[in-house]
């Protein structure tokens, strides 16, 4: 009886694991399968490098080029990451090196609450505060890539802060006493010992945060203007996620437009997989035996 129970438990857990794997495999299979018909009509280079996105042939040939969307996604994600890392790493240094345990234990959950705010709310606040602000500054429609990057940066902050503060805290614990024991001040030790040591850990966490930024849809879509333009700092732009969200409902099932949206989704998916896997592996290699 007991062995039967034991076997049953093992079996259930195995089945659940298989279910997890199958669901992911199926999602990916489905997306690839729905994306492929597009490439029978449009070449890969035209798709990635073309700048005309005319999925429905009102006038002339339909055309599928996602260059601007792809660049828009990359531009806004990297810009957001840059903004978020400047403030986030600063805050992480403070949390790891200045705050005592009580303050840290209060601020950690507080900052992680930021991660719980839904993205539409960030979009709403961006739309009612940042967009009019940029409009008053003379950026004409108000919504622009910089605006989206700022909103996205705020959304990335909790992830960047928590991973960076963890790393810095552990390094701090390991080396700070030794360094200050040699007679240098705390800030000197942080600048010359801890920060240089932390660079490789921080770099990989930042790249993982970029992956998160690229998949973000709603908040970015609401403040970026959504126009198929070559992205510029104060101009409108559109991300791949936004194209899918805006056009999914109007694409006729099985049409080239529909397959085009799947192809765009596949490009985004592959980009994220590449970033996540390479950073995950790089982290393993960099960390090696010296797991913090």
């Amino acid at each position: 009886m007991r062995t039967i129970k034991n076997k049953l438990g093992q079996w259930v857990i195995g089945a659940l694991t298989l279910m997890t794997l199958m669901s992911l495999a199926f999602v990916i299979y489905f997306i690839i399968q729905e994306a492929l018909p597009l490439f029978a009509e449009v070449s890969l280079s035209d798709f990635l490098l073309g700048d005309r996105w005319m999925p429905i042939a009102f006038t002339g040939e339909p055309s599928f080029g996602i260059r601007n969307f792809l660049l828009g996604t990359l531009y806004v994600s990297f810009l957001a990451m840059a903004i978020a890392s400047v403030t986030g790493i600063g805050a992480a240094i403070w949390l790891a090196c200045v705050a005592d345990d009580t303050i840290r234990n209060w601020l950690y959950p507080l900052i992680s609450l930021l991660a719980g705010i839904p993205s539409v709310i960030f979009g709403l606040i961006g739309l009612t505060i940042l967009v009019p602000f940029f409009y008053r500054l003379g950026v004409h429609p108000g919504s622009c890539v910089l605006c989206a990057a700022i909103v996205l940066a705020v959304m990335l902050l909790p992830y960047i802060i928590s991973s960076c503060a963890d790393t810095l805290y552990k390094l701090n614990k390991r080396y700070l006493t030794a360094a200050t024991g040699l007679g240098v001040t705390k800030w000197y030790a942080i600048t010359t010992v801890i920060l240089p040591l932390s660079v490789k850990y921080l770099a990989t966490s930042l790249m993982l945060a970029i992956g998160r930024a690229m998949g973000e849809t709603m908040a970015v879509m609401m403040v970026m203007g959504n126009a198929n333009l070559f992205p510029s700092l104060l101009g409108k732009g559109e991300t791949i996620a936004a194209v899918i969200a805006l056009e999914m409902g109007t694409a006729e099932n099985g049409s080239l437009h529909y397959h085009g949206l799947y192809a765009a989704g596949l490009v985004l998916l592959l980009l994220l997989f590449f970033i996540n896997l390479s950073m995950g592996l790089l982290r393993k290699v960099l960390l090696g035996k010296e797991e913090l």
Partner: protein
Amino acid sequence: MRFLSKLVRIWAWLGIITVLGVLAFLFTYVYYRGRHVLSVAFLTQAPSGAVLGEEGGIYPAIIGSFWFTGTAILLGSIPAIGTALYLVYFCQSEKKVLALRLTIQCMAGVPSIVLGLFAYSFLVKMLGLGRCILSSGVALGIMILPFIEVRAEKAFQEFPVSLVQASQALGVSKTYLILHMVLPACRGEIVQSIVLGGCYAMGATAPLLFTGAVAYASVPDSLFKPAMALPMHLYLLISQGATSIDLAYGTAFVMMAIILVTNLIAILYARRRHRIWKQS
């Protein structure tokens, strides 16, 4: 170098001040704009008005959001916890563990809009479920699965190895060990991970687009019907050009209050229960 260290010091202070400033601003601003709208009627009436939602309340959206979240939790958390248990207690080979971890990492990287696209074509169109809570629930469930798995796995790994070894020395089966020791001991973290996953699902809009959330529906009574959801309602209020943004802030305030209060309770609950075996 001394100059540089001064710079780092300023950087740290500016960083934390900016972050806390943004945090305080976000919460107070949403509260400030949303509090006028809040009333019993707003919470208990259905939306109405020329642009839907300009008048009336958000009651069906609140209830609908709970349906979506519940479905997502049901579909997402069980396989997530199963996978976490498998990884920590049953998987013997290093390579398998690594492969599974990478798969979970990939899954966490699938953008939510792509999951929405998948649910829309596969469940809504191909299987003919139509727009319904279940279709969205599947997309949300897949979205929160890796989120819960990572946290649950971390909790299981913190369960002391000495207890596992002791139980094995006594000839206790793994299933018994998991059911009677690991799961009760990690209850705090597991509940927290599920609740946080639920909050994440409740705030997500992209997987709901075209899969199950609609502009207007009455309070749902079945998984096979479409429903309103708070984030979708908020998005539609803004994008369809309601004359006043106040009701949008009211909706945002309610949504944020639900999510943050639940979040906070889960965090505090887990902290109170955290590693009971380490306190003694």
